[in-house]
């Protein structure tokens, strides 16, 4: 019988902000444990989100073998390894002081706005060990600044937000300066006269989720992905390459093993290269079923089976700079839109700015962006830009031509 033991621990201090003041301080010690046993083609699982002894969980996992859940793969072998991408540690007192100072500064320079949200310092450790020698530990930490804003005259519950994750002491001057630039632009509502300008996206979850969903290897194998008939063909622009990255200590990305404990050799997995779709993503189960190589792209909640999911999707930088775009629509928040399975998309812009000659000129309202995934990363793809929102960020802006429709 093979066995796997998994434990994740989080120790976090969280400061909640309401009405531009600190409202609460929370300490959280979170623990998740699971044990999986593999015996004669069946798997037994037990899990807990409260304190539990390993022996108790192991006994329950063995007992659950009686449910006769089949398993199509074997646990991966491995060695003892530790990855530590932790940054600086800041105490709760320091986090309180940083939050206080940030609020004081934001309020002083932006008196028309009310701020809410939270700041957090979180330290995490994951440990996975199996009876085939894998003994992995990953340590990480981050400091989160996540601030929502609303104009004092606004009837909305919030008008937008601004957030960044830091791994060492936050550069507060940069954060406040960038945030204030956006708030200045927010106050200046302007019409969008030219609807043929490029669109700049930053961290838009809807767009990347299409790739996450349709590069699922199982969907591709079952001829049910948008990309099923397009594998190994040049479908997108030469400029578009998309990678899955599971470990990058410089940018504190640390998912070196997947949900089943499989640690792939190379940390960069090309999914789309120069517009050609190369491979889908496979976890151990699907790799075994469809006779493919596992790609180390699965996640497993502590009490479930693994699901295919990318680690970090990264569009290769294309050398285009913000300076090359004299004028563009800078989209900070879209919400409510979605892709259809035929690849068409409508994205209502909730917060967008007109960007011109290096600065945010003002806020533009009530716009809908339409296009298809094929064109967005094909003939309409301008590129992944050199610039990032904050210095040192991994997440790049990317620019695309979209059909900009005025009015929602």
């Amino acid at each position, binding site marked *: 019988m093979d066995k796997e033991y998994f434990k994740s621990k989080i120790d976090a201090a969280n400061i909640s902000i309401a009405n531009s003041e600190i409202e*609460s301080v*929370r300490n959280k010690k979170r623990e998740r444990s699971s044990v999986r046993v593999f015996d004669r083609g069946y798997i037994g*699982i037990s899990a807990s989100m409260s304190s539990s002894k390993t022996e108790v969980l192991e006994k329950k996992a063995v007992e659950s073998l009686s449910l006769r859940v089949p398993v199509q793969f074997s646990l991966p072998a491995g060695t003892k390894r530790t990855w530590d991408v932790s940054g600086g540690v800041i105490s709760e007192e320091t986090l309180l002081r940083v939050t206080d100072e940030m609020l004081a500064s934001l309020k002083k320079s932006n008196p028309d706005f009310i701020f809410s949200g*939270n700041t957090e310092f979180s330290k995490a450790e994951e440990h996975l060990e199996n009876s085939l020698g894998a003994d992995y530990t990953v340590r990480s930490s981050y400091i989160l600044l996540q601030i929502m804003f609303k104009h004092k005259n606004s009837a909305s519950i919030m008008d937008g937000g601004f957030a960044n994750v830091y791994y060492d002491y936050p550069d507060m001057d940069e954060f406040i300066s960038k945030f204030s630039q956006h708030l200045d632009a927010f106050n200046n509502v302007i019409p969008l006269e030219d609807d043929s300008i490029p669109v700049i996206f930053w961290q838009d979850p809807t767009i990347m989720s299409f790739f996450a969903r349709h590069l699922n290897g199982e969907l591709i194998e079952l001829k049910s992905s948008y990309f099923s008939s397009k594998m190994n063909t040049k479908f997108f622009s030469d400029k578009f390459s998309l990678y899955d990255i599971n470990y990058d200590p410089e940018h504190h990305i640390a998912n070196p093993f997947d949900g089943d404990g499989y640690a792939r050799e190379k940390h960069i997995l090309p999914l789309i290269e120069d517009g050609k779709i190369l491979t889908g993503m496979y976890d151990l189960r699907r790799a075994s079923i469809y006779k493919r190589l596992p790609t180390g792209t699965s996640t497993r909640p502590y009490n479930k089976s693994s699901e295919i999911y990318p680690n970090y999707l990264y569009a290769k930088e294309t050398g285009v700079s913000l300076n090359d775009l004299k004028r563009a629509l800078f989209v900070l928040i879209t919400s409510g839109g979605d892709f259809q399975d035929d690849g068409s998309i409508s994205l209502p812009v909730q917060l967008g700015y007109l960007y011109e000659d290096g600065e945010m000129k003002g806020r533009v309202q009530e716009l809908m962006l339409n296009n298809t995934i094929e064109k967005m990363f094909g003939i309409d793809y301008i590129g992944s830009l050199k610039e990032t929102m904050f210095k040192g960020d991994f997440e790049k802006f990317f620019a695309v031509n979209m059909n900009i429709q005025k009015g929602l």
Partner: protein
Amino acid sequence: MDKNEIIKTLRELDLNRGAQYADVRIEKTSYASIGISNHETTNAIEEVNVGAFIRVYNNGRWFYKSVSSIENLQRELDSLCSISKTHKGISLPIFDSISPSVSERFLYESKTKAISMAEKYSLLSSYDSLTKANQKIKVTQSNYIEKKSEMFFANSKNVLTNYDYLGYEIRISYRFSDNDKNFNDMYSVYSDDFSKLLSKEKDISDALFESETFLYANSCAPGVFPLILSPSTAGVFAHESFGHKSESDFMIGDENMKKEWALGKRVGSEKLSIIDYGDIPGNSGYTPFDDEGTKSQKTYLIKDGILTGRLHSLSTAFDLNEMPTGNGRAINFEFQPIVRMTNTYIEKGTSTFNSLVSSIDNGYFIKSIKHGSGLSTFTIAPLKAYKIKSGKITEPVKINVITGTIFETLNDIEGLSDELVLKSSLTGGCGKNEQYPLRVSFGGPFVFVKKMNVS
């Protein structure tokens, strides 16, 4: 640790150790899930968790701690009290109105014991196998989920409230594919009674038949159209477009919002009433007492088009000089209660569904949705929608998104059908700030809206 031992633990805590206010919430949750992916069982697990959340209030600031063991609660409470005392802020008489009380509501004590995992698996497996008959179904995911929670709460004002919650859900998700055409859909059934999950074969077959027709649906013509929203779509609209704005924590210290959302103001059509009420057993938003020990109130957010009430925790009720409504909720013992909805719905009207449809010459019926969201503009991404032509539902259509300005749409509600359906679920739920998913339910009747943007 059983129910009586947990209550004894709570009763023995000394909650008056120097803080102006303290409370402790203990949650014991039993969870069972079974997953079948493409007709292969992938997961079957039973899990029991116990944890606690401690709150201390001193001089105008809250201090919280979550713990995954309840063995040393007094020590954890004392430690938090000691930290809170270092804060020098302003004290508010926020808790003066709380009176001692003991309340208990255990509805489900004996209901989960008799059903074995084998029986649950057998039911799920039989439903899953119904998807095998259709060759165009390429991907399936079937899940059984069961959650039983026992909630225990005590505070330094001698309030003790305990209750339990039970929900079962079966969800069959499937993806039709035919060459480059694909369509994802699902069937789900939820109840607090396992027997209500049985004999659903015909419902599932009907759902599969309907879903297949959407594989070949044409895209809609964009524009402004009259719509009929199904009860679940209307519920999401009520929840996203209006319910969140009724959560009064957004109003604290915001004079403009207080003016904008003054009670007594007309905000919608006189046909429209929206209610939030936690004490409706059998729904996933069932919360007879909130996580601050307050009994749930039936709150009319809108009554006959007039803004009538809003949702409160203890703090927000004090700040706005209103009564708590039993809406201070947390997703689990790891988080603090914040103002949240429970079961939120549009009150039913008097028309029939057919009469609503027959009044539309050229429009759409939104039967189900993928998701919705709402700031000043709300957006809903439909999943299944039909064209309405000359007063009749005709062919299925693909709609990317419907949008509208909230107040305009609330005023454009022209008709409500005479049935009320609440949609409950154990998968997904409501998200606010960092807390997702919170179990809620939402619904209403069929709702006729005069105009909305369709694209």
